[in-house]
């Protein structure tokens, strides 16, 4: 396992040539707790192309949010990146201090969090929060700041008069959208979103997703979208990454993963959300619960719950194997050739 910042040389070259906006290699994140360390993210790798919409799904506790914060270098002790590299626009990010990261932050990479009520400073107006982001990146003219603030709010469908409001004075949906507007202030290349729709009702969820997608197509930024709602994100994402217990279990073009899932876990997830329009099928769930990551099971982490488990699964850890253009971490597809990156 490489230590942070170990690999960037090779990864950086690869990223530059591939033109990827973000290259993550073998990223691992651990929580140092009193009872031991918990590896919340275990060897995750992927590339992100400019303008791509990547959906990351999994149940709670699978590490998807931790992955996001690790990429954005926003982890807080006791969480730490303990391995792998994150190369953003050709620059390695792991190990940089906040001061060094300040130049890129928000300008090229912005973040949208789950609950706008918690993510927005309750004692500052929307305008003030927009302003300090822009000020921190050299936009000095008051006029420019005012114009841009109004512009981004209009982009998300909010009347700029609300710039004067405090977060608690806006409705939930408006708050969420202002957060997205704030993320777009400096037209970043990558926007990371951590379950931004989970706090909303179903109708607001859909309209927010549509809005995000429109903005993305309009402005051309890449998106990593984390959610537990696979069906929601699958309408909008280019590629889908399914995580389980800190590892990537399936990863490929959305249509493919959604229509023909290969990993037993993904299949289980699909079957738990039967289509409202399809034929009536009995509801199935996945028995058991996710493993305790302080002492994960040996071999494949899904083995204790897998309906297709083999002896081999409990002893060896499967790699990611190629199956028709998708990567699957399952011995059932071991003949597909390992994914080396």
């Amino acid at each position, binding site marked *: 396992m490489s230590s942070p910042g170990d690999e960037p040389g090779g990864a950086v070259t690869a990223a530059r040539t591939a033109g990827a906006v973000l290259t993550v290699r073998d990223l691992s994140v651990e929580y140092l707790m009193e009872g031991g360390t918990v590896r919340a993210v275990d060897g995750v790798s992927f590339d992100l192309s400019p303008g791509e919409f990547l959906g990351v799904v999994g149940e709670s506790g699978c590490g998807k949010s931790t992955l996001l*914060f690790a990429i*954005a270098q*926003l982890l*807080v002790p006791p969480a730490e990146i303990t391995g792998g590299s994150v190369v953003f626009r050709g620059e390695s990010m792991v190990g940089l201090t*906040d*001061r060094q*990261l*300040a*130049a*890129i*932050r*928000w*300008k090229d990479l*912005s*973040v949208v*969090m789950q*609950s706008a009520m*918690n*993510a*927005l*400073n*309750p*004692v*500052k107006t929307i305008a003030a929060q927009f302003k*300090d*982001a822009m000020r*921190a*990146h050299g936009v000095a003219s008051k006029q420019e700041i005012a114009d841009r603030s109004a512009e981004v709010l209009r982009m998300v469908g909010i009347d700029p008069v609300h710039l004067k409001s*405090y977060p*608690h*004075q806006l409705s939930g949906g408006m708050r969420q959208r202002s957060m997205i507007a704030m993320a777009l202030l400096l037209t970043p290349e990558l926007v990371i979103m951590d379950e931004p729709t989970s706090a909303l009702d179903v109708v607001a969820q859909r309209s927010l997703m549509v809005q995000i997608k429109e903005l993305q197509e309009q402005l051309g930024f890449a998106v990593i979208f984390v959610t537990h709602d696979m069906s929601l994100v699958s309408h909008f994402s280019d590629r889908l990454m399914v995580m389980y217990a800190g590892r990537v279990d399936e990863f490929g073009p959305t249509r493919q993963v959604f229509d023909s899932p290969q990993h037993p876990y993904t299949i289980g997830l699909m079957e738990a959300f039967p289509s409202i329009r399809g034929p009536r099928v009995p509801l199935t769930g996945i028995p058991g619960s996710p493993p305790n990551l302080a002492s994960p099971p040996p071999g494949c982490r899904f083995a204790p719950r897998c309906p297709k488990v083999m002896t081999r699964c409990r002893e060896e850890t499967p790699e990611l194997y190629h199956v028709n253009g998708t990567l699957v971490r399952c011995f059932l597809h071991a003949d597909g050739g390992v994914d080396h990156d």
Partner: protein
Amino acid sequence: MRFVLRRLGFFVLTLWAALTLNFALPRLMPGSPALAIIANHRGALSPSALKVVEAQFGIGHQNIVLQYFSYLGNVARLRFGESLTTQPGVSVGHIVLDAIPWTLGLVGLTTVLAFILGTLIGIVGAWRRGGWLDSIMPPIFVIMTVIPYFWIGLILILVFGVKLHWLPYFFTYDITLTPGFNLAFIGNVLEHAILPAFTLLITTIGTWILTMRNTMITTLAEDYVRMARAKGLPGRRIMLDYAARNAILPNLTGFAMSLGFVVGGAILIELVFNYEGVGWLLLQAVNNDDYPLEQALFLLITAAVLVAILLSDVATAILDPRTRGAR
């Protein structure tokens, strides 16, 4: 605005409760001690003062309801009668007014200073978690908060006054000097104020530091602080604008609630240093069984605490937009 009005209403209610307590206590006490003392000293009082005292303590033949209302009426007109024993015959109002400036200066200024300093230290301590400041702070300040105010005053007197003869420790100023707005007098006053102020400072600052540190730590874990980092804002701005601005809010309320304790401590400190402020006067009154004076001082102290709390509520309303809104 509505918020402030509501608080104002609450304080009027509390003041009324204190008044009623004042009225009820002497009548509830077994053996009516108040009556005995007053009977002994009524000769010292002028007729109008006598009337006030009768209403306060239940002497005389009016029924209790009438007494209550005359008592309230007297208080409203700031008529507290005259001192029985401390300065017989002198209006209580006068005696109290003489003492107020000293206490206001000492306790008022020192408390504000302690709060500001303590808050700043707490902010920085929480910001630099894991540093040396953070590991020694809690135990030290925990111990500081339990030291009895009067005892630390005594120790300081021992060290700086008796042994080292550096600082005076009796009265508010050298009694051989005549008061006046000249440099010599003011300097002397300040000199006399140093030890008591220092005592008050070190006993109260611990609480502010600790509570600020704790709220700051909780605030630093909030999402909006993480968001501020994500926006690439400079460290100092995050610490002040995002963290401290929010962390201080519960502290303001805490400040208000702690005032009661600070006042108690200040009384003892004034006693120890013979500092002739309101607290010292209260204890003199207690020792002399000078009930009218005692009552007036108690009301004064309560009212002062209420005003301070109201001020901190106003500050909260200003700093926290959520209290102002239509929520």
